[in-house]
C-alpha cells in the first residue's frame, strides 16, 4: 500500500495540483473486490510500481511519475495496452480491463493518452469519416479507397468487367461501387454451371447469406434437388432467370417461382424434365400456377419439346403482361397436328397481348408458312420491334403474306431471317422500303437474295428502268450479316450496300462470299471508319496484302477481325502485321507503335 503514492495526503496534494474536483475516486487497491483484472495489465501495473518504488522522493507535479487520467483514476496504463483507435466511453479499455467500474463525467470525454517518454499528453482525436483523407497534419493522405463515389464510378466505367471485379475485391468501398451501381449490375450475370445448389454446399452457400442481390442468374445443367433459402431471401431481387438443361421438377419449380415476384425474364431452355413429369388432366380447372407474375415480360421456352398446349396455356395465364415470347426450336418432335395446335396457341397469345407484344422469336419452328404470315397480319395494332423467324417455303405468287407483313410492321429494329431460304428479292425490297428503323439485319444463308434485292436498278425487256431502293439508305443500320448470300455480286455490295456516304456501322459479317473483292474492302475501310467487328471468314478473294493494310490503316476501332481461310495473304509480305498483331495480344507494350491498339480478337490461319 505504501509503495505507491496514494495515501490521503498525497491525494490531497494531487487535488490541489491537478485541480480536480471532489469526485476523485478511491485509489486502486490490489486486493480489490471487483472482478480479477487481466494478468497482462496486472503485470504491467506491478512493473510500473517497481519502478516507482525505487525512487526516494516522488514529485507528484511531474506527470511522468503519477499518471493521472482525467477521470481521476490513479492507474498507470502502459502505452502498449492502449488501443490506437479512439475507444468509446462504454468500453474504456483500461477500466474494463482492471475490472473496476468508475463512473465519471470526464470519462465520457476523449481519451487522453499520456506519453511517458516525451512527458506531454497527446490527445487522440479520430477524424470523422467524411474528412478521412486528411491526415492529422491537415495534409492529404492518398487514400484511393476513400475517393468520392462519383470519381470511383468514372474510373470503373472505363475498365472491363473482370478488371472491375478485381478492383472490387480490394476494399469495401470499391466493392460497393462495383456491385451496387445499376449500369454495372446490368453488364453482368451469375452463371452456375453444373454446380450444386444447396444451402450446405460451398459456393452456393455464400450466395445465400449476406445482404446483396443478384438480378441475373443463369443455371446450366444444375440439379435442383436440395432445399435452399436463397430463393426466399433473394427472390425479390431477381429480375432475370435462365434455366438451361436443368433437372427440375414441378414442385421445386413452383416453390422457386413463388418467390420471384419481380421476375421480368424467364428462360427455360431444354428443360424437358420439367414438362415430362407434369401431368395435367384435361378438364382440370385448377390453374397450374396458383399465383400471377405481373412483371414477367419475356418468356422463352426455346428447345423444350415436351410441353403441350395445356402447359402453355397455363404458363401464359400466369403472366398476363408478356411482351416477348420465344418458342424457337420447339415443337420439332411433335406430330404435325400437334404442331399446328401449338402454333395456334402461340397465335392466340400474340392476339391476346397484341398491344404489348414487342418481340417474337419463331426461329427453327416448323410449319411456318404463308398462312402464319397472314395470321400475323390479321392481328390489328401488333407492332413488333424484334422479330426472328426462319421461313423456308417459297413465296407464293398470289398475295404473299410475307410482303403484307413487312408492309405493316414498320417499327422493326431487329430482324433476323437467318436461313430463310424462301426469302426473295421482292421481300428484301419490301423490308428496306418499309422498315426505316432497322438497326440489325441478319440474312445469313438467304440464298435467293440477288442484286435486285439489295437495290440494283434493272431494265425490263421494253427498256423501262425499274428503280429500287438501295440497302445503304437504311439510316440506322448498325449490324449487317449477308454471309453466304453468294448471288449478290461484288459491284452490288460496293454500290448498294456499302455506298459512298461515310456512316456508322458496328458489325459486318461477310463470310463465304467468293465474289467479294479487294476493292470492296477498300470501300468498307473508307466508309465505315468506326466498325468494330469484321468477319471475312473464307472470303478468300477479299483479303490480300493490300486490303489487309487498308484494314489496319483505316479501321482504328476494330476489335474483332476474322480472316480465317483467306489464302491470298502472302506470308512474306504480311508477316510483319500478323506477327505484330499476335504479339499485341500478349504484350501490351506494342500498342503505341501500331495503328490498331484495340484489336482484341484476331483469328488467322496462315502457315
Amino acid at each position, binding site marked *: 500500500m505504501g509503495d505507491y503514492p496514494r495515501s490521503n495526503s498525497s491525494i490531497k496534494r494531487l487535488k490541489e495540483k491537478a485541480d480536480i474536483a471532489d469526485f476523485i475516486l478511491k485509489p486502486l487497491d490490489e486486493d480489490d473486490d471487483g472482478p480479477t483484472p487481466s494478468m497482462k495489465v496486472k503485470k504491467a501495473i506491478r512493473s510500473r510500481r517497481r519502478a516507482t518504488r525505487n525512487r526516494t522522493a516522488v514529485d507528484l507535479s511531474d506527470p511522468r511519475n503519477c499518471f493521472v487520467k482525467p477521470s481521476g483514476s490513479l492507474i498507470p496504463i502502459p502505452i502498449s495496452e492502449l488501443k490506437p483507435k479512439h475507444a468509446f466511453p462504454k468500453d474504456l479499455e483500461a477500466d474494463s480491463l482492471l475490472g473496476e467500474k468508475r463512473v465519471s463525467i470526464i470519462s465520457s470525454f476523449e481519451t487522453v493518452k499520456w506519453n511517458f517518454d516525451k512527458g506531454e499528453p497527446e490527445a487522440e482525436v479520430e477524424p470523422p469519416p467524411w474528412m478521412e483523407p486528411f491526415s492529422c497534419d*491537415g495534409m492529404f493522405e*492518398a487514400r484511393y479507397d476513400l475517393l468520392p463515389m462519383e470519381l470511383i464510378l468514372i474510373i470503373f466505367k472505363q475498365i472491363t*468487367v473482370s*478488371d472491375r471485379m478485381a478492383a472490387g475485391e480490394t476494399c469495401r468501398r470499391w466493392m460497393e461501387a462495383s456491385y451496387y451501381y445499376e449500369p454495372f449490375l446490368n453488364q453482368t450475370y*451469375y452463371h452456375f454451371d453444373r454446380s450444386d445448389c444447396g444451402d450446405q454446399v460451398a459456393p452456393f452457400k455464400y450466395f445465400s447469406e449476406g445482404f446483396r442481390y443478384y438480378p441475373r442468374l443463369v443455371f446450366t445443367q444444375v440439379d435442383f434437388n436440395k432445399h435452399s433459402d436463397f430463393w426466399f431471401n433473394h427472390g425479390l431481387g431477381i429480375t432475370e432467370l435462365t434455366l438451361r438443361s436443368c433437372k427440375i421438377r414441378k414442385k421445386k419449380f413452383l416453390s422457386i417461382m413463388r418467390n420471384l415476384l419481380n421476375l421480368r425474364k424467364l428462360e427455360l431452355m431444354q428443360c424437358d424434365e420439367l414438362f415430362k413429369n407434369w401431368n395435367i388432366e384435361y378438364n382440370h380447372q385448377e390453374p397450374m400456377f396458383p399465383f400471377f407474375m405481373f412483371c414477367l415480360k419475356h418468356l422463352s421456352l426455346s428447345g423444350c419439346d415436351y410441353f403441350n398446349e395445356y402447359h402453355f396455356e397455363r404458363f401464359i395465364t400466369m403472366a398476363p403482361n408478356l411482351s416477348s415470347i420465344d418458342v424457337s426450336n420447339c415443337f420439332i418432335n411433335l406430330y404435325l397436328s400437334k404442331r399446328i395446335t401449338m402454333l395456334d396457341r402461340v397465335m392466340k397469345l400474340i392476339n391476346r397481348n397484341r398491344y404489348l407484344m414487342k418481340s417474337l422469336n419463331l426461329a427453327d419452328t416448323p410449319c411456318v408458312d404463308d398462312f402464319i404470315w397472314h395470321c400475323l397480319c390479321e392481328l390489328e395494332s401488333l407492332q413488333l420491334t424484334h422479330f426472328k423467324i426462319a421461313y423456308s417455303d417459297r413465296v407464293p405468287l398470289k398475295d404473299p403474306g410475307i410482303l403484307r407483313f413487312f408492309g405493316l410492321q414498320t417499327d422493326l429494329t431487329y430482324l433476323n431471317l437467318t436461313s430463310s431460304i424462301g426469302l426473295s428479292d421482292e421481300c428484301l425490297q419490301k423490308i428496306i422500303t418499309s422498315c426505316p428503323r432497322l438497326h440489325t439485319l441478319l440474312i445469313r444463308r438467304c440464298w435467293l437474295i440477288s442484286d435486285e434485292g439489295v437495290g440494283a436498278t434493272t431494265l425490263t425487256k421494253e427498256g423501262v428502268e425499274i428503280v429500287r431502293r438501295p440497302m445503304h439508305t437504311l439510316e440506322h443500320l448498325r449490324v449487317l450479316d449477308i454471309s453466304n448470300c453468294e448471288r449478290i455480286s461484288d459491284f452490288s455490295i460496293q454500290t448498294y450496300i456499302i455506298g459512298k456516304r461515310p456512316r456508322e456501322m458496328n458489325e459486318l459479317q461477310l463470310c463465304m462470299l467468293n465474289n467479294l473483292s479487294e476493292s470492296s474492302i477498300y470501300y468498307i475501310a473508307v466508309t465505315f471508319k468506326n466498325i468494330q467487328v469484321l468477319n471475312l471468314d473464307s472470303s478468300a478473294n477479299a483479303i490480300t496484302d493490300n486490303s489487309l493494310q487498308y484494314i489496319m490503316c483505316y479501321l482504328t476501332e476494330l476489335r474483332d477481325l476474322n480472316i480465317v481461310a483467306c489464302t491470298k495473304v502472302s506470308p512474306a509480305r504480311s508477316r510483319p502485321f500478323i506477327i505484330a498483331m499476335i504479339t499485341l495480344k500478349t504484350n501490351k507494350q506494342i500498342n503505341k507503335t501500331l495503328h490498331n491498339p484495340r484489336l482484341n480478337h484476331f483469328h488467322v490461319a496462315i502457315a
Partner: protein
Amino acid sequence: MSTIKLETSDGVKFTVKTQVAKCSGTIRTMLEDIGINPQDGEAIPLSNVHSTILQKILVWAEHHVDDPEPPRDDADAAKRTDDICSWDEDFLKVDQRTLFDVMLAANYLDMKQLIAVCCKTVANMIKGKTADQIRKTFNIENDFPPGDEDKIRLRNQFCEERR
C-alpha cells in the same frame, strides 16, 4: 486581360487570368452566378486546395484553356482510355499522392476534362492487375472482415459479362 486572385488553403495567393480560372466550373459559377467581382482585388478562397496542387492545376488549365467544349459523353466514349494526349500523359506522370490530390482538387473545382484524364490514368493503372496488385499500387487498406474476402472472390468467380 483581366485577372483574379485565388487564395489556397495554406494562404498562398495566386493571380490568374480570368479565362484560365474559368476552366473551373466552381469558380465560373462564383463569378457569373453569385456575382463575386474579381476587380475588387479580393481573393477567392479555395479552402480545399493546397498551393502546390493549385499550381499544378493552373499549369494544366493554361495549356487547355483553348480546348473546345467536350462533346456529350456517350456510353462508348467513356470506355476508351487510350486517348489521353501525350502532354497530359507527361503531366500526370506523378506519384500516387499528387495524382490523388489533383483528382480531388479537380473534383472540387469541377473541371470535367481534368477529372476525365485523371480517371483514365487511374483506370489504366488498374487494368490487368489482380486485387493484391491493385491494393499495392494504390496503397489500399484491406478493410474486409477476415474470411469475407475469400467469399467475395468465390462469388466473383461465378460472375460473367453479359453480351
